[in-house]
């Protein structure tokens, strides 16, 4: 549902405009955001530097030597006036992410089960049952924020983030789920691990997942995970520094 006063254009510096389309997170936002992204690519052409789509907005960065911010604003107003949702291309590519759900590589499985008042098996079934959409990429290269998670699984982030979350970790926080492309600090609940290469500098397009894509997690056993090149090393115990 569109809020009054939207869409809006907000200054984002000498070389940027924030296009705000919505004020709530809905799957249907993606139909409009992918269309807007495409239309901006066409409208700005060579003057375009970067487009950053996220849940409800698109940040447009242009080259201020080729186009002034008021010229850019006019272009964007025109794009918005003619914007139609991307019904055809808005479905996004479907990815199946093979995931080994296990307490060793997913040390927060028990915590999620307890907070959701479910068995561990039910957590796994619920997480892998649904199809998710990619709403945004950020935090780290190829890190895709996916949702929306079933209400029953929604649980808060860890009080103390882990210093090192292993690459491939599959995690949940609030109504979102994600897989960590590389070793980084992180405060999400780890429930499993995938061998999928989420970010690969040799791959065309680099990131496996893009905004608008659809994702389904598929439960696999340890053997399959290892055959696909997964590292079964358990996650180091968390929150050690908090205890000491």
């Amino acid at each position: 549902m569109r809020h009054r006063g939207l869409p809006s254009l907000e200054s984002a510096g000498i070389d940027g405009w924030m296009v705000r389309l919505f004020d709530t997170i809905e799957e249907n936002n993606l139909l409009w955001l992918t269309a807007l992204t495409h239309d901006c690519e066409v409208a700005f052409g060579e003057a375009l530097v970067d487009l950053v789509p996220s849940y409800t907005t698109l940040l447009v960065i242009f080259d201020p030597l080729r186009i002034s911010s008021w010229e850019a604003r006019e272009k964007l107003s025109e794009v918005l006036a003619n914007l139609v949702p991307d019904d055809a291309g808005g479905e996004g590519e479907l990815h199946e992410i093979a995931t080994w759900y296990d307490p060793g590589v997913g040390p927060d499985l028990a915590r999620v089960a307890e907070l959701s008042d479910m068995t561990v098996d039910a957590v796994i079934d619920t997480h892998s049952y649904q199809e998710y959409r990619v709403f945004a990429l950020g935090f780290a290269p190829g890190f895709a924020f996916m949702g929306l998670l079933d209400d029953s699984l929604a649980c808060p982030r860890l009080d103390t983030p882990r210093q090192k979350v292993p690459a491939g970790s599959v995690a949940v926080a609030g109504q979102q789920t994600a897989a960590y492309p590389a070793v980084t600090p992180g405060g999400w609940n780890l429930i499993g691990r995938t061998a999928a290469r989420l970010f690969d500098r040799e791959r065309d397009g680099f990131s496996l997942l893009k905004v608008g894509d659809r994702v389904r997690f598929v439960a696999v056993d340890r053997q399959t995970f290892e055959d696909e090149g997964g590292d079964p090393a358990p996650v180091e115990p968390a929150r050690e520094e908090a205890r000491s």
Partner: protein
Amino acid sequence: MSSGEITGFRVTRAGPLALLQDAGRFGVRHLGVTQGGPADLHGWAWANRLAGNDWGTPALEVTFGSIELRAECDLTMAVAGADLSARHNDQPLPLWRNLKVRKGDRIRFGMPVSGLRAYLAVAGGFSAKPVLGSVACVAREQLGGFDGQGRRLAEGDRLTVAEPDHVQTEPVETPEHERPDYAAPAILDLMPGAQIADFTGRSLYDAFNTEWRVDDRADRMGVRLLGPPLHCRIESMISEGISLGAVQVPPDGQPIALLNDRQTIGGYPRLGNLTPLAASRLAQCQPGQNVWLRPIGAERALRKHRHLLSESLAAGS
């Protein structure tokens, strides 16, 4: 090393932080990849211009100093930006002008005197294989730099240099009025925008009438400012794209200006955006230094930016 490349320097002592930077990594921010590039665009652009290089040529960003290099061949180079007590053999190394070094010469950076980041450009430019279209070194993302993996410089590293098409032989220097006094309180131009209307009147007054102190929590991702807490009617938002120089205010009310290695999206309300020149200037502030925020209109901000680029782009060819 491919043809046309030579070893320009050998690292004889690695400092805390020396990073290869071109203009930045663009066109991949929608994948969560940060911008990178020189934290002080102004100093970086001048170093390249003085070395006779085109815009975007990779130069070395030396933060805090304490690095030592030995020239492996005769070179023309320039250092601009912070005064990090640089020395050329046993002499002070002059900043903001080009100079010739001979094979075997030593270039040493010591302690910061004013500013934090010095830019060393060499005629022809440092040479490395671009990753995702850029050599900008971002350690956190393991991208760019001399090895492509975002690794910091280590003792013994050989820094490759592209052989220049032409060598700047005339002495060139940056005019006096283009050399900032980094030790003076900085006045940072901020283009109001984003959620500025949702801050309380008192906070808006405070934002632009406070001598903010630069916190020691400051790096290439962002610089935190200390002062009276600012209050926004919105506490947190749905995450959205973050532009260079965005000034966000988390619930503790202490603003954070986001620089080149910031995360690509974020969910705190923002006052607006520092101009690229203001972000550059802030990147040269040492912890404890004072800064002022000053509102600026879009037209004037753009004029100043184009001036910076035309000055530093008018290469000495």
